[in-house]
């Protein structure tokens, strides 16, 4: 019994650690999509920020906090870039997002080689120390912060006039503009916020969670976040739960792998969190959640 209990605690702690990047990216993306801008480049932004914050930490001599700031700032800039291309240049949001992903995948590998002479990963380092929550169990401060971010985003979207105006942009930018909302500005800001959150998520992965930058270390988390956005019905509170769900599946998979020590089964087990999350998304998406009407379409004024 005590062994199972400690196993469960391990899984729970692991789940709370693995939920963070998905949750952060989902919350940012929900705000962005509510304003009408979809960014499928979350994965790329996460990866670039994960890489950049390790570079700042290992080579730039930055502390953990500064490394986080570097990751977040890069994410913000990339989000703003995506926003500007989408909003002001009326570019195709999907194409821009794909571009970000492909660029990130290539650039980080090349950058890793240029700095450390190997294509696979940076040198490892001690990850950021956690803070104690209950009875000596330590987690990253980003765990409570990511939950707080979800709550704050919900309050913003549904309990402030500014949030209401932002939602109007994603539903019907033409009417919003006619009602005096500066649609372009809202969409740009929202896209920047999504980038910022994805950037922090990336920094978390490398600096806080694993203490290394490894090739393609985001491993599809950006896409799972996108699925989670839809699954949550564009509601940040549900998205936190969705992030935790993925985290649980992943923690279970990691524990199972350690327990089984079976090389062949590992790939299959590693795939389960993704599959399970997708299944849940498909099941829940049938319940008639509605996407913002103008999602992903550039708003061209007459």
């Amino acid at each position: 019994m005590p062994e199972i209990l400690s196993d469960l605690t391990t899984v729970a702690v692991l789940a709370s650690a693995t939920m963070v990047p998905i949750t952060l990216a989902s919350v940012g993306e929900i705000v962005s999509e509510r304003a009408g801008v979809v960014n499928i480049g979350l994965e790329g932004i996460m990866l670039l920020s994960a890489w950049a914050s390790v570079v700042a930490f290992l080579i730039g001599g930055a502390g953990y906090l500064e490394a986080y700031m570097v990751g977040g700032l890069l994410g913000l800039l990339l989000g703003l870039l995506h926003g500007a291309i989408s909003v002001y240049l009326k570019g195709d949001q999907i194409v821009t997002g794909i571009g970000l992903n492909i660029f990130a995948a290539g650039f980080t590998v090349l950058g890793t080689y240029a700095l450390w002479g190997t294509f696979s990963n940076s040198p490892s380092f001690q990850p950021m120390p956690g803070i104690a929550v209950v009875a000596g169990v330590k987690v990253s401060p980003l765990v409570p912060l990511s939950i707080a971010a979800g709550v704050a985003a919900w309050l913003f979207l549904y309990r402030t006039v500014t949030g209401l105006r932002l939602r109007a942009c994603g539903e019907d930018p033409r009417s919003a503009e006619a009602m005096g909302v500066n649609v372009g500005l809202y969409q740009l800001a929202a896209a920047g916020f999504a980038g910022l959150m994805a950037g922090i998520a990336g920094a978390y992965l490398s600096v806080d969670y694993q203490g290394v930058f490894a090739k393609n270390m985001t491993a599809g988390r950006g896409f799972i976040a996108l699925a989670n956005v839809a699954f949550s019905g564009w509601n940040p509170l549900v998205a936190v739960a969705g992030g935790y769900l993925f985290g649980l599946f992943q923690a279970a998979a990691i524990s199972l792998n350690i327990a089984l020590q079976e090389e062949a089964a590992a790939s299959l087990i590693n795939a389960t969190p993704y599959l399970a999350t997708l299944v849940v998304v498909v099941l829940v998406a049938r319940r008639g959640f509605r996407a913002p009407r103008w999602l992903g379409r550039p708003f061209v004024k007459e």
Partner: protein
Amino acid sequence: MAAEPRPLVEMRGIVKVYPDGVKALDGVDFDVYRGEVHALLGENGAGKTTLMRILYGEIRATSGVILVDGRRVSWRGPWDAIRSGIAMVYQNFRLVEGLTVEENLLVYLSSLGLPRAEARRRVERVVEDLGLSVDMDAPVEKLPPGARQRVEIVKALSGGARLLILDEPTSNLTPLEARGLFKLIGKLREKGVAVVYITHKLREVVEVADRVTVLRRGKVVARVSRGSEGFNEERLAALMVGEVPRPSSPASRPLGGEVLAVKDLYVAGDDGSVRVKGVTFTVRGGEVLGIAGVAGNGQEELVEAIIGLRAPLRGYVEVLGRRVRSPRDFYEAGGAFIPGDRAKALSPELSVAENAAFIYYTASRALLLRPSRLASLFDKLVRSFGLKAGGPSTPVSSLSGGNQQKVLVGAEFMRGFKLLVAVNPTQGLDVATAAFVRRLIVEAASRGSAVLLISSDLDEVLELSHRVAVMSSGRIAGVLARGEATPERLGVLMGGS
């Protein structure tokens, strides 16, 4: 409305030349007083909407001045106008569908810098003042057009509007909703709100306006006040169109052979219920058969079965002896179709020429699209059908409704046909264009084509048809020959007795 010394808004010598050189307005003077309903009457393209967009700050006049309360103003955009108390209610409304009524009002009023509590108070006052009932928590998408329009009016007035511009306000309303609107306009007048009523519908002008300014080709051709001579539909129609349109009527000449045969047809609707219940009729070459009836009595399903879009449960449709099982059969047998809903036949983002070509080549097996052919299609639309469009590559979405209809109708007529199935072919058209389309239909029949005309406009059916069939609850309730078809007798049949 002459008692007041100074108009609320005055526009003097307004000229608007668009970048492409089109002169939309040529020295227009216009004014509105408090508590006055001023109709702005004109055909599509006469410049009435352009004039009001200038007043509303959406576009700038090339020259001319605007005075509000006697002071000269110059708008940088609509928000300058809104802050001065001028608000526009668009034909298709500008409300965010995914949000509730209250949320919409809040978005608008927060743009005016009103805090939430103040916004709520103002809305309550306006709603109470006008004696309206508005469900604040209803999502806008669930509201019928009439209710959306009331929300727009509440929105404008709680934002401090003193002048409301209503752009073709009844175009999306049911007759009952329209009556509600007229009553509301009466209340606005009592409260001293000025209303500009943009329309091309003569009956409405006579019903609601205190004064009417008639625009034709960018110029004011007349100003008529209620009570004065000439404030009636006939006179205003003449002013608006320039000539009173002559009604066309079908020529009586010997009819040709049977073109369309519908035999014992049963058709199911989308919900699976039987909507057409045993309909049999034929249309011969040179004949116009009108189908009258209250919308929703199976006309839609009947038409879709005739053009091969909906498989019948029983019975059949033949065009010139060929069984119709798909739209391809229908078109290849020589059929042409004008749907009641333009949006179903045109691709808004494609160009005028592409849309025309798409219709023109419907039954063709041609492989290549030659640019020269596209250009000539466009030229013909302009020359023969009076299309007004920038050029062959102008997207259809930027055309007015009337011109879109010309593309649709023109392309079908250029293609040539032996059978025309037309559903509300003149819906939303201005008087002159509608008369033109009716003349085309009559001419097609006199050249030997068969025409099936399904229209909710009883006058149109009576004017054009040799015979009128009345549809009621999925059946043909009766067929009347021209001459015995009077609105009264048709009305009895429509009622289903």
